[in-house]
């Protein structure tokens, strides 16, 4: 399989594009050397999915738009471990986002059930080593980073 270190995608901001993005991330991780384990691949793919889903639903309100995504594998070098990086740009509505709050488990609803909202950001923050969001206008930007040496601890036992 040809090793892909970098890929740029321009996709309509629709849920159908989420599947295409998932597949692109999985294909790239499948070519990583040394190999990325299944758990890491899943968690990275999920975090990118949650980021993109946020853009589709919240930045564009489900009404379409363009989602630009750059995904990259950086090899280990100069003492830094190998990393996966995903970056996006969109021209949708920026959100007011507190990543520290997003890292806290969403509060249950009055009936004691898990909240229906907020879980995507919670997952994203816990599954990646570094999450940066820069709201626009004109462009909103996300950057996600995850080391590929298996050192990440989600906290899930």
């Amino acid at each position: 399989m040809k090793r892909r270190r970098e890929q740029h995608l321009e996709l309509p901001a629709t849920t159908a594009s989420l599947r295409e993005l998932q597949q692109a991330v999985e294909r790239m991780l499948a070519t990583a050397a040394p190999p990325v384990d299944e758990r890491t691949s899943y968690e990275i793919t999920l975090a990118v999915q949650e980021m993109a889903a946020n853009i589709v639903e919240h930045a564009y309100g489900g009404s379409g738009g363009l989602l630009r995504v750059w995904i990259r594998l950086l090899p280990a070098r100069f003492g830094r471990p190998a990393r996966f990086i995903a970056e996006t740009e969109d021209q949708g509505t920026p959100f007011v986002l507190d990543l520290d709050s997003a890292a806290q488990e969403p509060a249950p609803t009055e009936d004691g059930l898990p909240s229906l909202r907020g879980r995507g950001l919670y997952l994203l923050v816990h599954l990646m080593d570094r999450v940066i969001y820069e709201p626009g206008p004109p462009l909103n930007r996300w950057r996600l980073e995850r080391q590929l040496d298996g050192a990440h601890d989600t906290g899930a036992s």
Partner: protein
Amino acid sequence: MELETREHVLTIHVVTAHGRLDAFSVPELRERLLALSTQGGRHFVVDLSGVDFLDSAGMAALVSLLKHARQVGGDVHLVWPASDAARRILHLTRFDRVFKMHDNVDEALDLF
């Protein structure tokens, strides 16, 4: 002595999902669950053993089902995904503390 007997039948809908349960595929699941609920379904076992990718949209659909079921006096049990990675996500989001989790459908049905 007077004796009365009556038959009590518990209907449990077993919904088995395969593959990816995510923002792209969740509308189909929601539609199926809505149909079952509308027909009076209150008790559900959702078999995730064949699900290899689950995201927050998929989880939200399960929570919606649980909310509805409890409102009408029912419940929802889940069967663990076979994928270890997917199981970890359920641990991370503490879904395993909200839903009764089982290793297989038979166990879920027995313990309903």
